[in-house]
């Protein structure tokens, strides 16, 4: 995303307080006129990354479309916790059909809008990693192949959470889930090939693909809005930690997401027509262990003894991401590169803090 240099005083994170910004630079979430597309009263767990990600992304889409959007939701946590009969938290027209067909249903909604000449109404399809990466893959690929005018958002918490934390095609190696338990000689999920859906989306050469996390609100809002600049098939993949399934503290959701990006395990980038057009460089690189230690789904890598070989393989994967996507442009703290300006008392510099 484009970078702007601003002054900030906040310690411990790279977030800039909105009151320090000009109104037009402020995030959608900071405004009282934000849509609250997913409004309060839903039944998500304390600290749910998906609830956060959905609200962030969809409020940005609502602003970009001037409130003219329809959402199609796959079965999953988001669908279940947002519509417990007889209530709904959605303030937009919203349709839930099945687990594996959200992209196809969204295609149908988009076709209906075209048939009716409602080119002003935009369509979002959304689902968790389960409904996207596994059971929804055929429909997703079909939607990409036809270049249907749909923005598909995948909220990736890396397992089938709603049904009790079972492993999905998005579950990372070594992670504990209910179907890849932390027992035996090789506890946790196996080291397979993984299924990198953002890269699969890029292979379809659709107009816009991006990854984001709930740790960087402005980046996520920017990408959701940017996606609406395009017509045709678009894909947004958002990492959303799940305290329950990941075994992280509910208050750490944003921190855990940030560690995922800063370790290199979750590259944040944008692509258009199959080519990467921008990456969010890692500002302060951390070893993968900093990330892994925050979640008890990786506890077996550290207790009773540290599984150094497994951790090394995970680190190697992070290293490959960093090289592949150019996530560390160079090792300096050049503000041009990192977007960090030092100002105020030396003690407030987060590069030297914590």
């Amino acid at each position, binding site marked *: 995303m484009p970078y702007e240099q601003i002054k900030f005083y906040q310690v411990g994170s790279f977030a800039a307080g909105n009151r320090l910004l000009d109104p037009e630079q402020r995030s959608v979430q900071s405004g009282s006129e934000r849509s609250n597309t997913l409004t309060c009263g839903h039944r998500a767990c304390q600290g749910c990354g998906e609830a956060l990600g959905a609200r962030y992304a969809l409020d940005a889409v609502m602003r970009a479309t001037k*409130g*003219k*959007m*329809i959402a*199609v*939701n796959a079965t999953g946590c988001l*669908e*279940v916790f947002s*519509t*417990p*009969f*007889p209530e*709904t938290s*959605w*303030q*937009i*027209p*919203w*349709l*839930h*059909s*099945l687990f*594996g*067909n959200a992209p*196809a*249903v*969204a*295609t*149908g*909604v*988009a*076709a*209906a*809008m*075209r*048939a*009716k000449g409602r080119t002003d*109404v935009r369509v979002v399809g959304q689902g968790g990693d389960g409904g996207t990466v596994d059971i929804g893959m*055929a*429909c997703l*690929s*079909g939607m990409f*192949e*036809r270049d*249907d005018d749909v923005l598909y958002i995948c909220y990736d918490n890396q397992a089938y959470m709603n049904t009790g934390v079972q492993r999905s095609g998005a579950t990372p190696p070594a992670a504990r889930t209910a179907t890849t338990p932390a027992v035996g000689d090789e506890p946790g999920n196996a080291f397979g090939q993984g299924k990198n859906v953002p890269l699969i989306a890029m292979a379809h050469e659709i107009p816009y693909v991006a990854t984001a996390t709930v740790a960087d609100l402005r980046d996520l809002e920017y990408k959701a809005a940017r996606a609406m600049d395009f017509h045709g098939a678009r894909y947004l993949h958002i990492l959303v930690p799940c305290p329950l399934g990941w075994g992280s503290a509910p208050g750490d959701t944003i921190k855990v997401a940030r560690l995922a990006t800063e370790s290199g395990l979750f590259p944040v980038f944008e692509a258009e027509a199959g080519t990467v057009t921008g990456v969010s460089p890692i500002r302060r690189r951390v070893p993968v262990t900093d990330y892994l230690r925050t979640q008890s789904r990786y506890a077996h890598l550290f207790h009773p003894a540290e599984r150094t070989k497994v951790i090394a393989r995970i680190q190697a994967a992070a290293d490959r991401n960093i090289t592949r996507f150019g996530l560390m442009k160079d090792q300096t703290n050049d503000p041009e590169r990192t977007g960090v300006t030092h100002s105020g008392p030396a003690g407030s510099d987060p590069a030297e803090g914590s």
Partner: protein
Amino acid sequence: MLKQIEGSRAVAETVAMCRPEVICAYPITPQTHIVEALGAMVKKGDLAAEFINVESEFAAMSVAIGASASGARAYTATASQGLLYMCEAVHNAAGLGLPVVMTVANRAIGAPINIWNDHSDAMSQRDAGWIQLYAQTSQEALDLHIQAFRIAEELSNPVMVCMDGFLLTHASERADIPAQAQVDAFVPPYQPRQVLDPSDPVSIGAMVGPEAFTEVRYLAHARMREALELIPQVAARFTADFCRESGGLVRPYRTEDADLIVVGLGSVLGTVEDAVDELRDTGMRVGVLGITTYRPFPARAIAEALSGCGRLVVLERALSPGTGGMVSADIRMALPAGPAMHTVIAGLGGRAVTRKSLRAMLTQAAAGALGPLTFLDLDAGLAGRELARMRDARRSGPSAENMLRDLGISASRIG
């Protein structure tokens, strides 16, 4: 306008006149000619609709769901394996109360894979909550589509129009293709009960727990009961507007004084009527009851039509292995104390149902010599030899291949 036309083509031209807004289909024999014709019409600009080439039948019904929920008139077509592949979405459409219209070009379900006609596909979905209409001729096939859009949208319930694969889809016969103005007068613009609209947002498809699920399902049941009233009204209105009989619940033929009545669905009824005429010429008092609306099951209409006869033969184009027929079970439920009933499983996987075999079977039935469950034209020797092979050896091999080799159809073993 009267035309000599292929059944699929007749249906495509008529569906086009019903002004569908979104057409989404995946090709499967024997439905291909219908969707190809519609696709060509859209591409040429003769039909203003969105035509989506989907990647599977599951996607086809899903696209239809999205379109219908957004207020667009949605249409798709499939058969056999395709109907099964979209099964989850078929139930979903009915559960959500979306008036999708779908043509099912009836074809057998595998294994073994078979592309020919029987009713096993539609029968497998008889409890999904869709209205099921069965066409006897190409004329009725196209007529039923016009009625289907009206019925579906009036009730907010999906409708499947069943037409026998190959026998109706690929046969050329005479049909009266209506004029656009006639169809427009019969099928008004779609006014949805529920619709995704940014100016009036609703959530469709919420989870419903034990506290309300029964009531939601009861509404589906109530819709089907209402359909039993609406379908004859629509058929009567159709007769008035188009000057021919088509649709409705049941169609009796020479049943008034019949001692023996044959019950059936679909295009086989034509052959049955010919056989019945031949038997009537010999003095046998036999009649036919065609079931046009199979779901909801028109129990009362059937009971009335069968009230006078002493014996029934139910001709089934599908099989419930180990049990027998499905239509038979429905009829027995409608007539618990009714006449003696013989289930005859006929024409599975496209085996021809001939007048000769029907006459022989009905003669046996009239003489009280037919058992409760018969397979018409079963090659008992062929089946028996495979059963013997299976008894003799554990590793008897795939049954289908064994039997085909027995019939001399497969190539001989190499080496």
